[in-house]
């Protein structure tokens, strides 16, 4: 189970995409006091758009991070190169929880319909998206099933 929060920025820069992404990732990690591996930064040079996604094992820390990013002074205290100018920033609008579920459905008839039923049942609180049904080799190495996709 992972929690993510995404926001965006519009930047002006002549630096390469790799430089922009690395600089922003490092600056965010430093200012938010989080590990760089928990931040993904994607820069689209054609539009100047930066999408940043922060991952955490809990929702509460991401709510706090969202409030920090939302603060007026956040952009001004970011330690980024002078040749990256942040025109605007949109802080994360919410925290998303993501749960990946795998089911040994070897004995389940019409798997897609069953997933649709689950989606309808959870509809008030959750969104369910099928990631496909896979032929697998099942090897029992203990109490938990191990799925090897082929």
């Amino acid at each position, binding site marked *: *189970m*992972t*929690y993510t929060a995404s926001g965006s920025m519009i930047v002006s820069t002549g630096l390469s995409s790799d430089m922009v992404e690395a600089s922003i990732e490092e600056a965010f990690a430093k200012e938010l006091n989080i590990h760089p591996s928990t931040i993904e930064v994607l820069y689209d040079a054609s539009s100047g758009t930066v999408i940043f996604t922060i991952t955490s*094992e*809990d*929702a*509460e820390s991401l*709510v706090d991070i969202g409030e920090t990013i939302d603060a007026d002074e956040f952009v001004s205290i970011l330690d980024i190169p002078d040749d990256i100018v942040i025109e605007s920033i949109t802080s994360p609008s*919410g*925290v*998303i*929880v*993501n*749960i*990946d*579920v*795998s*089911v*040994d*459905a*070897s*004995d*389940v008839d019409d*798997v897609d319909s*069953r*997933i649709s*039923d*689950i989606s309808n*049942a*959870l509809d008030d*609180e*959750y*969104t*369910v*998206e*099928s*990631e*496909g*049904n*896979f*032929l*697998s*080799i*099942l*090897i029992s190495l203990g*109490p*938990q*099933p191990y*799925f090897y*996709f*082929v």
Partner: protein
Amino acid sequence: MTGIVASFEVTAIVTKSLKEEEVDDITEEVIRRMNVTEDDIETSGT
């Protein structure tokens, strides 16, 4: 032994971390709708 694995992603917008009971509710819904056992289900990070 070969079989079919159904894989899907459950998402929601939250303000607090999910409680164990909430994750259990999802698991129970899967068990009920797919007629499988808890041992047939693998849930990420729980």
